[in-house]
């Protein structure tokens, strides 16, 4: 009798215990359980929930590691100045010194996100008396990647508790949520603690602390780093080249900066058939269309150079794909199968509107430069409505066909 059988027997013996969901959670995490479904007809697929989630996490890992190096790079660059024209594999970026700065900052974010989030899930599983759901695995990895590096850990915990309870559990847990929990967590942080989610200090590791030390009388140079969107919204010059933006050597939330690695993650998701290429593509098209419209407006001279929208409107339309969290949001959040549209036609509409609206928010509301977060949350709410009309449209079309045949 192997360990697997022993574990199974242990489970059978303690069937009525309150803590059993806790045990089952770890059990199913490591082994496929012995129980099989006994009723009804089932189609068995190899890609169960857990495998789906692991695939997404694998796609996120490059962004996480890049984020650690970038955190260190931004920290030292803010003190010593940026390296101009750096290639993607430059040793100025990929070195241990950079990695250690980021590692020390980002590992706690990951740990807090998982410990608090899974803790809430465990508590709910025990109260409800059912097995723990794996739903938090991806959310827990997304959360550290979409927050500024200097966010205090207690704020992150409060937001994670809020996001998991209000964003997911009140609707009935994994698979029942209306909106993406990771984005709810970010939106909560954004509205609750705006000073920690915007401005030019929070994006660079150590900048907030140093500002505090200078205020206390220390002889140091202040360091700061504005995100590209932040600078544009204020009409400032951009210090970074297009390649910097594409490679991700820019300040921003931990995992969102490197468009190149997000693109790799997107290809991985598309080829493993986990993420919907329709949503990603249509969102990009939506963003480009909106960007072109704005470029048209500024080129036609309908808006003066003094206008506060001018800098963002005049940004070449394709650059919107490289800056801010657009790429990250579209690839990893908009494609969340639970909250996105389910129908094929619905996915095209859903994706297009996400792209369209995020650029619109970005340009017209400098107070909320990160439009993609709000755009995805908004479209999450509308996704069931879109599906409803797509399905109804299909029903009508087919009814007509039958009528035409029989008439």
């Amino acid at each position, binding site marked *: 009798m192997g360990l697997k059988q022993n574990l199974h027997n242990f489970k059978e013996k303690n069937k009525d215990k309150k803590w059993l969901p806790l045990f089952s959670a770890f059990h199913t995490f490591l082994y496929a359980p012995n129980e099989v479904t006994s009723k009804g007809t089932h189609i068995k697929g190899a890609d169960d929930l857990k495998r789906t989630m692991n695939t997404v996490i694998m796609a996120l890992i490059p962004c996480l590691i890049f984020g650690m190096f970038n955190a260190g790079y931004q920290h030292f660059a803010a003190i010593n100045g940026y390296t101009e024209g750096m290639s993607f594999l430059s040793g100025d970026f990929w070195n241990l010194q950079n990695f250690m700065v980021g590692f020390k900052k980002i590992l706690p974010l990951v740990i807090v996100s998982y410990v608090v989030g899974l803790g809430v899930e465990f508590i709910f599983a025990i109260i409800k008396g059912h097995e723990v759901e794996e739903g938090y695995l991806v959310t827990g990895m997304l959360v550290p990647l979409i927050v500024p590096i200097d966010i205090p850990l*207690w704020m992150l915990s409060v937001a994670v508790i809020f996001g998991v309870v209000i964003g997911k559990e009140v609707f009935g847990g994994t698979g029942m949520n209306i909106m993406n929990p990771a984005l709810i967590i970010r939106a909560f942080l954004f*509205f609750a603690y705006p000073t920690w989610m915007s401005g030019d200090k929070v994006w660079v590791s150590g900048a907030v602390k140093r500002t505090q030390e200078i205020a206390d009388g220390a002889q140091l140079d202040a360091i700061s780093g504005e995100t590209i969107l932040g600078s544009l919204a204020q009409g400032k010059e951009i210090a970074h080249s297009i390649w910097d933006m594409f490679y991700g050597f820019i300040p921003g939330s931990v995992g969102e900066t490197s468009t190149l690695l997000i693109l790799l993650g997107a290809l991985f998701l598309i080829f493993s058939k986990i993420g919907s290429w329709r949503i990603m593509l249509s969102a990009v098209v939506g963003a480009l269309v909106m960007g072109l419209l704005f470029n048209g407006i500024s080129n036609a001279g309908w808006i003066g150079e003094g206008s506060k929208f001018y800098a963002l409107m005049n940004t070449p339309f394709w650059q919107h794909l490289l800056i801010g969290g657009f790429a990250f949001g579209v690839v990893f959040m908009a494609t969340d199968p639970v909250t996105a549209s389910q129908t094929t036609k619905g996915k095209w509409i859903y994706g297009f509107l996400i792209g369209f609206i995020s650029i619109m928010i970005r340009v017209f509301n400098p107070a909320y430069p990160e439009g993609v977060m709000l755009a995805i949350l908004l479209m999450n709410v509308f996704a069931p409505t879109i599906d409803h009309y797509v399905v109804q449209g299909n029903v009508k079309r087919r009814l007509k066909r039958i009528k035409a045949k029989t008439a």
Partner: protein
Amino acid sequence: MGLLSKKDAKLITDPLADNNPITIQVLGICSALAITAELKASIVMAIAVLFVLAMGNVVISLMRNIIPSKIRIIVQLVVVAALVIVVDLVLKAYAYDLSKTLSVFVGLIITNCIIMGRFEAFALANGPWQSFLDGIGNAAGYGIILIIVGFFRELLGSGTLLGYKVLGDPIEKTGVYAFGYENNGFMLLAPMALIVLGIIIWVQRSRNEALIED
């Protein structure tokens, strides 16, 4: 025999919990969202509604046999409007700052669904004494929820209670702010009032067997 008969006492206690106008009937939400960012405003609003609802119920109950049923809504509106104007003028005279905070929401008591609801459902069919008790009970049920929501929103959103800095000074970094605590700005926005209200309903419904559906 106490001050109130058992049936009369139920008129007051029922709306406090098991038949609360906000959490069970989900009426009067608009004002609960709008003015609960401060505890003080919540309390004043609760008192204003208590006055309007108790008095209005009595007046409508006294007139219940002479109001033609075709124009009863208009009569009810006139009564409640008169009472609201009294409250508004008293606030403007004695608590001008507060009346500015409450702004249009004092006037909007007129459209508060709880008030018209109680007139229609209770005062038109019962005597003045019962109607008075019913008004007190429902207004108190409304007020309690307002005060609970106001308490949490002001405490977590501004770190104060009734304007006193109970959590310390956020600028001087005293009290809990010394440990890096910060006020939650989201609490001051209307969506959070809805969420706090939702949590109250959630707790109440899951603790009370009679309210669990399906």
